[in-house]
Structures are given as structure tokens and as C-alpha cells.
């Protein structure tokens, strides 16, 4: 039964368009209108038909998954969300819906994992935090009510408690300078929870510390310095930490994650320019802004100065795309007599937005989701612009 009559006009319009061009992508908004109007069978049928022609169109799979979920066909819904999540590991919505789906299926351990993934991608996601708390609570309750009936929930709750205890202990050891045992403990946690990005980061930090200590025998335990990794507050995990680990964990089809190259020797003001690979504090801060998913700083010649982008595409390829779009757009605006150079380009797509800003001889690329509007994005960028200028 239809819930909302206003949806019919849309359905009619989209149906007409789809009839006139059956290969059109309009089947997705049509299916979504069906779903919103409560016509779930029609939504599913439309998606399935469209996906036969456009099997890699992930937006269709999201609509299909939602329709399945509303029809309480949880297994089918999970299959669709998993396909989206495996095609785009950074798709927060897919992980979130997968988590909710598992929650409805009382698969609490799986739900917890999905919400943890959402939080790894966006630590400030209040909804995911709430859902994770709920999943943990339900896992506990299920464990208490039926001790033998819910092994997965029980193990999830226990594992979470053990993890917290081990984490606290490992951090204590780390603070006391017992790197050896802290590393062992972190490794133990990782064995139980290999996708724990926070622990991976801690382990990575300690291993770096250990390696430094062995190479710099004269100063095995240097005092913490302000601003550097060794001077950070161990209790505070920043999104930058998580993103840094994700560079290692997010699969990339063709190229290694670190595409940061040394700036060319002829680069002007080489002394003032940030050293390749060295974190730029203003960029790190920008990266932590809610809604901002990644940043890239490059020069006009296409040399990457700093990259914190999590996309499936090779950074080299992205850099050449950025260079190309700047050059071609600049050429076009010159022909149009709108100016000699492009200062900023913002592109809004269905899954987010990207802004390219020319700052002197550099280009700052900021990738953001829909949670941030243009004004906030510009405000967040203003500090970086100031520093780079």
C-alpha cells in the first residue's frame, strides 16, 4: 500500500522517462520513489531489472538493500550492502546500514564490527556511536538472558571487555616505557580484532619508537616533544591517526598508498615548503573537521606534498586529473574572457563534493561528504590557506 500520494507524481514521471529510455539510470530514483511510497515489491523489481543493465551501479544496490530491509528480507539486504561496502570500503552508509541490518537479525558481533568501521571512518558519527552502544548493550543483555543461546553475542561482549582491559594495560606499559610488553599486548589485541585501526596505529607508533631507540642508541628514550607524534596525548586518538592507519589497510588496486614524492630540487623556497611526507599541522586539523574525508596538497607540476586521501584510485592518477582539470578549465575561462587563472573549483557529486583551491604555486584538494556545506568547508580551509600563503 502506498504511504504517500505525493510520491505518485514522481513515480509517474520517472516511469515515463524509463519507458522512453529503458537503459536510463532513472530506474534508481524510480525505485527510491516506490520504496518511499511503500511499494517495496515494485522498488525491488525495478532495481533488479536496472541492475541487469548496470550491475556496478552502487546507488541502485543501496536502494535495493533498503527495500529488502524494509521487507524484512535481511539476508538479501546484507548481500547488497556487502557488495557496496566491498566496492567502496569507505562507504559509511553501507557499513551503517549493514550494522543496522545485523542488529535487526540479532547478529550483534557483526553489527558491532560494522559500527566500529563507521566510527573508524568518521569518529564523530554520533549515530554510529549510539548504535554501537546499543549493539553492545543488546549483546550483553542477550548474553545474560540466554547464556548458551547467543554465543556470538556473548563472545562479542566478552571480547569488547577484554579488549578494553588489555588496551588500558598496554597504554600503561607504553607510558611506563615498557615498549616490549606493550607491543606484545597490542599484538594480542590485534589478533582478536585485526581490523582495530586504533590499535594498529598504537602498534605502529611503538614499533617506530622501538626502531628509533635501536638506531639512536645514545638517546633511547627521548623526552616527548610538543606537536610531534611522541608528544601526543596517548588517550586521545585523532581521526588523523585513524586515517594514517587506513592508508595501510584500505586496499588499493594498482599502486602503493604512499604516493608522496620528494619535492623537486628546483622548487622555489624549498626551505619553507613542507618536507614530503611530513604532516602539516594545519592540514591535519582540516582533516579532523567533520565532513572532510580527505586532503591532498600538490604543486602545479603535479608533485604531491601531502596526501591523506582514501580513494580506490591511484593518487598519481588523481593528481594528473587535478592538473588536467585546472589546466583545461583555465584555458576555457581565458577563452570566455572570465579571467586569466582559476582560483577555485568545486564539484558536487551524488556521493559528496570536492574542492580544488589554488594557493600560490600549490593546489589544495579537499574531499568532503554531504555533512558539510560550502561555507563551513571554506571556513575550515581558511587556516590552511593562511599557512600556505
Amino acid at each position, binding site marked *: 500500500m502506498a504511504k504517500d500520494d505525493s510520491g505518485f507524481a514522481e513515480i509517474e*514521471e520517472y516511469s*515515463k*522517462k524509463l519507458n522512453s529510455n529503458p537503459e*536510463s*539510470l532513472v530506474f534508481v530514483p524510480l525505485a527510491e520513489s516506490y520504496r518511499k511510497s511503500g511499494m517495496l515489491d515494485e522498488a525491488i523489481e525495478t532495481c533488479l531489472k536496472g541492475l541487469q543493465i548496470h550491475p556496478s551501479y552502487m*546507488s541502485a544496490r543501496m536502494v535495493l538493500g533498503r527495500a529488502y530491509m524494509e521487507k524484512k528480507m535481511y539476508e538479501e539486504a546484507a548481500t547488497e550492502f556487502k557488495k557496496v561496502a566491498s566496492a*567502496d570500503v*569507505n562507504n559509511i552508509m553501507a557499513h551503517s546500514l549493514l550494522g543496522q541490518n545485523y542488529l535487526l537479525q540479532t547478529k550483534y558481533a557483526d553489527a558491532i564490527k560494522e559500527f566500529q568501521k563507521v566510527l573508524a571512518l568518521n569518529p564523530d558519527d554520533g549515530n554510529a556511536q549510539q548504535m554501537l552502544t546499543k549493539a553492545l548493550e543488546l549483546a550483553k543483555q542477550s548474553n545474560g538472558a540466554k547464556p548458551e543461546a547467543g554465543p556470538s553475542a556473548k563472545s562479542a561482549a566478552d571480547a569488547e571487555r577484554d579488549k578494553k582491559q588489555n588496551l588500558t594495560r598496554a597504554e600503561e606499559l607504553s607510558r611506563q616505557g615498557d615498549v616490549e610488553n606493550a607491543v606484545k599486548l597490542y599484538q594480542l589485541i590485534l589478533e582478536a580484532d585485526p581490523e582495530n585501526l586504533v590499535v594498529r596505529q598504537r602498534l605502529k607508533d611503538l614499533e617506530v619508537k622501538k626502531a628509533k631507540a635501536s638506531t639512536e642508541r645514545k638517546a633511547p628514550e627521548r623526552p616527548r616533544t610538543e606537536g610531534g607524534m611522541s608528544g601526543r596525548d596517548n588517550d586521545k586518538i585523532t581521526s588523523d591517526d585513524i586515517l594514517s592507519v587506513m592508508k595501510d589497510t584500505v586496499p588499493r588496486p594498482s599502486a602503493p598508498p604512499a604516493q608522496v614524492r620528494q619535492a623537486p630540487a628546483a622548487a622555489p623556497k624549498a626551505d619553507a615548503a613542507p618536507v614530503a611526507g611530513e604532516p602539516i599541522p594545519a592540514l591535519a586539523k582540516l582533516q579532523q573537521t567533520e565532513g572532510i574525508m580527505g586532503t591532498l596538497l600538490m604543486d602545479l607540476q603535479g608533485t604531491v606534498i601531502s596526501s591523506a586521501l582514501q*580513494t*580506490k*584510485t591511484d593518487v598519481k*592518477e*588523481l593528481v594528473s*586529473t*587535478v592538473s*588536467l*582539470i585546472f589546466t*583545461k*578549465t583555465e584555458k*576555457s*575561462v581565458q*577563452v*570566455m*574572457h*572570465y*579571467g*586569466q*587563472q*582559476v*582560483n*577555485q*573549483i*568545486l*564539484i*558536487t*557529486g*551524488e*556521493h*559528496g*563534493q*570536492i574542492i580544488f583551491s589554488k594557493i600560490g604555486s600549490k593546489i589544495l584538494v579537499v*574531499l568532503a561528504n554531504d555533512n558539510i556545506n*560550502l*561555507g563551513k568547508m571554506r571556513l575550515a580551509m581558511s587556516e590552511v590557506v593562511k599557512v600556505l600563503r
Partner: protein
Amino acid sequence: MDFKAILNEMVSNVDGAIGAGLVGTDGIVIDQVSLKGSFNISDVGAEYATIIKNAKKASESFGLGKTSEILISTERAMMIMNTVSTQYFLAIALELDGNLGRGRLEVKKAIPKIEKELT
């Protein structure tokens, strides 16, 4: 309501608007209005189309999916381009001190009217 009327309404509501046009993705201009002599989209429709094409490419490369809006600012002007269906786009050019927010809003308001005319 014809296209020109929609475009006229759009530019008259935006402070600092120079002109606007409805262009096909092949660069062919369907209609345009100009508040300043310097704005003649008919001559540069193909350049707009090139920008749209490249932006679409960038959007895909960065995993943003279908492009809906492109904003460009230069040292002299600002441009807002929004896709209308898959075959057209609506563009408005503003002076540097033009009201960008209002421009975006007016473009978004005009799109359904244009889509209605196109069907």
C-alpha cells in the same frame, strides 16, 4: 513559461549576475540572457561543455558519482553550473562580488522549471 523567462527570472534575483544560459552537453546553447554586453554564452558554449566534461571525469575519479554542480571562481568572475537531466546544464556567471549563495539557490530553483519545459 519559456526558457528565456526562466533565465531572466533567475538572473534578476541574483545580485551581481552577469548572465545565464541553458546549454547542451554538446556545447550547443538552447537559450541565454545577458545583463552585460561581455556575456555571450553562445560564443563559448563549447568551453562550458568542456568544463562540465572534465568535472564529470574528476567527479568519477574521486568516487563522487554523478556530477550535479560545479562552481568556478577566477580573479574576475564566478560561475555556477548545474546539470539538468543528462543532456543539458544550466550556467550562471556572477561578478566577483556577486551573491554566490543566492546564485546557487536560484539555479536550484530554476532546474525543475527547466526540466518541466524539457519534458
